[in-house]
């Protein structure tokens, strides 16, 4: 069970890093190194996902990775300075609640 959540954490962390690097690289410059680095993180995320499927149910693994939506929304506000309205916060909160239900 602990390993499952460690892998979910790795997937969420790698996906978040990849998306932030891609978005930041395409908008704020530095795409030449940020985009290739994001692909490294995406590969790590996919590899972690394959290992998660080895030990966890499909019905757990796919929804659990949606936790990245929550982390990315927070970091999009803090790092990318995006305007996040109540619907976006609401969507992230619903996803967080869904992931919390999976943890029960």
């Amino acid at each position, binding site marked *: 069970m602990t390993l499952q959540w460690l892998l979910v954490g790795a997937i969420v962390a790698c996906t978040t890093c990849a998306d932030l690097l891609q978005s930041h690289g395409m908008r704020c410059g530095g795409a030449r190194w940020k985009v290739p680095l994001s692909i490294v993180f995406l590969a790590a995320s996919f590899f972690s996902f394959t290992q998660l499927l080895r030990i966890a149910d*499909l019905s757990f*693994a796919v929804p659990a990775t949606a936790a990245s939506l929550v982390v990315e929304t927070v970091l999009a506000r803090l790092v990318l*300075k995006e*305007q996040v309205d109540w*619907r976006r916060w609401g*969507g992230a*909160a*619903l996803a967080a609640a869904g992931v919390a*239900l999976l943890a029960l």
Partner: protein
Amino acid sequence: MNARALWHTAGVILLNAAGNFALTVGMKRAPAAAGPVLALLQPFAAAGIVLLIGWMLLRLRLLQIADLSFVLPLTAVGYILNAAMGAALLGEQVTLTRWAGAFLITGGAALTSMTPARSRRKQEEREAAATGREGGEP
């Protein structure tokens, strides 16, 4: 919405579910001695990877012909479909709380998709308009 976009959307949802299903079967069937990398060479796992590459390419194509706000809520159905495939085809015990979790995540993705795709663009446009006015433009 045209039929082409709908067919693409259906293809995206099905490829994602089929890819995840094949990958799950492959990874579960791989012998423990195979190790984390060699397990990916198991036929079902390899088929899953090919299907997921197809899913990614078809999703890119779909994003060319349809709005992100159209794509996101429809493809979020995939969370429920994956749970259903786990229960129906893999014999997984999907509890009521897990179903509720999958539906909440789908609802969250749908709610997020109702927001403008690029919030910063509006802000930048406003700033550009303000700068233009300050510069004496009509």
